[in-house]
């Protein structure tokens, strides 16, 4: 109960502050929150969710999943192979340093303006933290654990599945967490450039047609979505890495 009060306290305070301070606002671009909330209820109907929110989320899921699969697979390969690492590391640092939104126009030239383009943008943006964290996690696998696996004949695919991936999983999870917020940003940005549906498209559409309360309501919806996704991620992570939290707690005690 007390914890819940802590968690909800500040958001409630901010919301109330916004509500009260904006109540008498005459500014066209910053309408009262009361008006925004009314627009929220009118705008985000089931129909709207189906035509705009669901396509966005599907593209997000596709891009994020592809980036996770590709990033982890490449990260394991690079992490396990010293020569490969020496060869690709400078290139990886270069690609990582490019802000992904700049690539949207370029990717549009190759991939058009459909779902493919948007998914590629998401993949390209969020594969890097996953990849680099996986490489680090794989490199940091304990030498004694590796010796143990070798001594007991655990090699080949079993070694990767039973030792490398679980041992690197805390670090991989850290990469996935970073990638999730990047993926949400890129989902919106890719839809702002060229699109006929999606959350980013709708928000830009509202802005261009001076439907300001509706625009604000879209931004609130985005915030709520991002929050919900990160809560889901934390739940999944907490379940999968229960052993890691326990191990760390045990190490702190001793």
């Amino acid at each position, binding site marked *: 109960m007390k914890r819940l009060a802590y968690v909800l306290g500040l958001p409630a305070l901010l919301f109330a502050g916004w509500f009260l301070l904006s109540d008498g606002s005459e500014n066209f671009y910053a309408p009262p929150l009361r008006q925004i909330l009314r627009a929220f209820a009118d705008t985000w109907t089931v129909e709207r969710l189906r035509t705009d929110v669901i396509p966005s989320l599907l593209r997000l899921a596709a891009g994020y999943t592809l980036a996770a699969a590709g990033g982890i697979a490449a990260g394991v390969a690079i992490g396990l192979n010293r020569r490969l690492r020496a060869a690709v590391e400078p290139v990886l640092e270069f690609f990582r340093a490019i802000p992904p939104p700049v690539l949207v126009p370029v990717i549009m030239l190759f991939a058009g303006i459909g779902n493919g383009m948007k998914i590629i943008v998401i993949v390209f943006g969020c594969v890097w933290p996953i990849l680099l964290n996986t490489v680090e996690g794989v490199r940091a696998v304990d030498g004694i654990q590796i010796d143990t696996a070798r*001594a007991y004949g655990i090699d080949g695919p079993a070694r990767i599945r*039973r030792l490398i991936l679980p041992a690197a999983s805390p670090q991989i999870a850290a990469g996935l967490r970073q990638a999730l917020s990047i993926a949400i940003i890129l989902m919106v940005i890719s839809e702002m450039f060229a699109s006929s549906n999606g959350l980013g498209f709708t928000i830009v559409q509202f802005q261009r047609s001076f439907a300001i309360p509706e625009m604000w309501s879209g931004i609130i919806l985005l915030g709520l979505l991002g929050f919900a996704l990160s809560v889901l991620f934390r739940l999944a992570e907490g379940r999968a890495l229960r052993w890691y939290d326990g191990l760390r707690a045990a190490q702190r005690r001793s």
Partner: protein
Amino acid sequence: MLEVQGLRKVYRSGGRETEALRDLTFKVDSGDLVCLVGPSGCGKTTLLRCLGGLLEPTAGTVRIDGHEVAGPPPGLAMVFQEYGRSLFPWMSVRDNVELPLKQKRLPRARRSTLVASALEAVGLAGTETAYPWQLSGGMQQRVAIARAVAYEPATLLMDEPFAAVDAQTRADLEDLVRSLWQRLRVTVLFVTHDIDEAVYLGQRVVMLSSSPTVVQDELTVDLPAERDQLHTRADSRFTALRTHVYEQIQAAKRGRPTPEGAV
């Protein structure tokens, strides 16, 4: 049978060469329990890694039952000093013990029999679903021993397994190793830096010189097969053997050649 012939290991890093093992030759008969003891830093771990096929020697050969070791040989199990790092913390005790058996492609029923009896043998029945880090250090090392036992090895290599546990736990684990060895009839090579432990456990003790390592001396421990912490350690024969090993280790530290002499 484990035969080590002219084993040499030189580490190269950059332009520097470090000779860890110079020339080691000794034999462990099938079903024997031999302790290797030497001054600290004498390359015991290097030797054991060579024996286990985890490290390639610069020269010389290791043969297990006549087969030359190149890579980890089947039928050989290892117990490491760092039990906390040798067990996989993301797996339960049962899964840790069972993993090498899965790799051996044993059927499920056989695996669970082996896991249950190995955990029973080390006195850990009932901890199957716990994670290793929920157990004490001594219990974790028991899990590592159970994993080795369940593997049904012909040869068991133990690298200072009790160096990191407290004295009382250590005494219990020493008795556990002797009783498992007697029951399972495996060949055990036990590396330690503790002279008392070497004499108490071994049927034979091989003493190593300081690095670069050669065999300093060998000794047959003619104590009765039934040993216990209280009486064996108070036995005058035990003390005599212990003194001999101690003197050899001291001589090894000073770098003197082996003085010949009956014990």
